[in-house]
C-alpha cells in the first residue's frame, strides 16, 4: 500500500539525516522562532495595556483584536505581498521572497494570538496583586511587571499557541517566501510541493516532523497550564 511504503521511506529519510529535508526543518524553525521573538514583546504589551487601561474605544479594540484571531493567513500574505512587491510602498526594502518577509508575515499572524492570550491572562489575574504592589509603594511600571510575572505561564501558553499557528502556516509563507529551495522553503510549503509532485515520502517525513513539533508544543502547553493553575 502506498501510504505504508511511503511512510517507511519517510522514516528512512528522517533517520538518514537527509540534507534537503533537515534544511527545510531548520528554515521552518528559524523563521517561526524569529517571528515569535519579534511579535511577543509588543503583543504582550498591547494585551496588558488593553487589560488594565480604560479609555473610550477600549471595548472596540478588544473586539478588533479578537476578530483578528480568525483573520485568514492568506489575506495577511496578500497584503504583505502588495506592500513588499517592487511597486509596493515597501518595495525598496527588496525583501520579497526572503526569510525576512516570511518572518514578518508570521509575526503579523502570531501577533493577535499573543496579544489576546496576554489580555485574558492579565484580566484573569488577581487584581490584588497589582493593588498590593501599588500599596507597598511600587511604581506603576513595577506593579505592571509584578502582574506580568504573575501571569507568565499564561503568556507562555500564548507563545506556544502562536508557535502552533505559524509553524504550520502555508498560505502566507508561500506567497511572500516563494517556496525557494534552500532559502524560503519551509515544512508546510515543502509538503504542499511534494504532494503536487507526487513525492509522498518527503511529504510524510516532513509531516512527521511537523506533528512532533505540534505534540511537543502541546505537551509544553499542558505543562505551562498546569504551572499556571498552581499559582
Amino acid at each position, binding site marked *: 500500500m502506498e501510504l505504508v511504503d511511503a511512510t517507511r521511506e519517510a522514516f528512512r529519510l528522517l533517520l538518514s539525516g537527509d540534507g534537503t529535508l533537515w534544511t527545510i526543518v531548520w528554515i521552518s524553525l528559524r523563521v517561526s522562532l524569529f517571528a515569535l521573538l519579534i511579535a511577543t514583546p509588543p503583543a504582550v504589551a498591547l494585551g496588558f495595556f488593553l487589560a488594565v487601561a480604560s479609555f473610550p474605544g477600549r471595548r472596540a479594540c478588544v473586539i478588533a483584536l479578537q476578530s483578528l484571531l480568525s483573520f485568514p493567513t492568506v489575506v495577511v500574505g496578500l497584503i504583505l505581498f502588495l506592500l513588499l512587491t517592487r511597486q509596493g510602498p515597501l518595495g525598496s526594502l527588496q525583501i520579497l521572497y526572503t526569510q525576512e518577509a516570511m518572518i514578518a508575515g508570521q509575526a503579523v499572524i502570531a501577533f493577535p494570538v499573543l496579544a489576546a492570550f496576554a489580555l485574558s491572562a492579565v484580566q484573569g489575574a488577581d487584581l490584588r496583586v497589582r493593588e498590593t504592589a501599588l500599596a507597598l509603594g511600587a511604581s506603576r511600571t513595577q506593579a505592571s511587571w509584578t502582574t506580568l510575572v504573575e501571569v507568565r505561564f499564561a503568556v507562555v501558553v500564548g507563545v506556544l499557541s502562536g508557535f502552533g499557528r505559524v509553524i504550520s502556516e502555508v498560505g502566507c509563507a508561500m506567497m511572500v517566501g516563494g517556496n525557494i529551495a534552500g532559502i524560503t522553503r519551509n515544512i508546510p510549503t515543502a509538503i504542499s510541493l511534494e504532494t*503536487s*509532485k507526487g513525492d509522498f515520502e518527503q511529504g510524510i517525513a516532513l509531516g512527521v516532523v511537523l506533528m512532533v513539533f505540534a505534540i511537543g508544543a502541546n505537551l509544553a502547553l499542558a505543562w505551562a497550564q498546569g504551572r499556571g493553575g498552581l499559582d
Partner: protein
Amino acid sequence: MERVFDKNIVVLLLIGAMCVMGFAGAKDATPPPLRLATTTSTENSGLLAALLPVFEKKYGAPVRVISVGTGQALKLGERGDVDVVLVHAREDEDKFVAAGFGVNRRDVMYNDFILVGPTADPAGIRGMTRVGEALKKIHETGAIFVSRGDESGTHIMERRLWKEENIVLAASPGARRYLSAGQGMGAVLTMSGALGAYTLTDRGTFVAYKSRIGLDILVSGDPRLANPYGIIAVNPKRHADINFAGAMALIDWITSTEGLKLIASFKVSGEQLFFPGVPPAAGYKKVGLTNGAG
C-alpha cells in the same frame, strides 16, 4: 420529545427523497462525469474554458478538470484518480503508456516555450536564436534564473535544456542565482517579474500574465522549444471504475476537425496560443510561431 421525533422524520424523509432522486438520476442515460487531469498551462490560459463546454454539450455530462503539473497529472492517471490526461512531456507520456498506465495516446496540439526576462536584459540574450546559448549566457553572467522546480512539463524541458548545454547547476539548491521555486507557472512568472529574473515559460501563460509582470520575450522560435501536448486515456484494465468510454469520447472529439478548429481559433489578446497537430520538425519557425514574439 415529540418535536425531536418530528425532526427525525423530516430528516428521514429528506434522505429518502435524495435516494429516490439519486436512483432516478442513475436510471437516466446521462453518462458519468469525466475526470480530466491536465497541466496548469491549458487551464490558466483559458483554453479548456473555450473547449470543454462544447464537448460537455455533446457528451452530456460535465468534465471535472484537475489542473496540476504534468508529473502529478500522470501520477493521478497512474493511480486511477482520473479518467484521461492531457499533458506535455513526450518522454514521460511514452513511459506512461509503455508501463501500461495509459492507452490510446494521441497528439493534440503544440505551443512553444519562450525564454523571458527583464526588459533591461542584464545577460544580453535578447534576440538570440539558440536557446542553449542564451541559457549559457545567463549562467555565465550570473543573472538570476527562476526554475519551476516542480517536475512539471516546463521544468522537465528546462532541465533538459541545461543538460544539453552541459551546465551543471550548483549542487546546492540554495544557490542564489538559480532559484527553484516549486510553484506553478503563474507564480514563477510573478516571482521572476518581482526579482528581475529570467525564466522559461510556455507562451500561453506568459501572454496571460505579461501585462502585470514587466517581463519581455527574449528568446523564442528555437525548434527545441516546441511543446507538444498529448492526450491519453487511463488504462481501464488497471482500474475497473474508470470512465473509459468518456475518456475515448473526449480523445475522439478533441482530435476531430471540430476540436482542432476550436483549438486553432482560441486566442488570448489576439494571439493564437495553441496549434493543432504536431510541430513540424524542420521549418518550425515559419509556421506562425514567431508572431508576436517581439
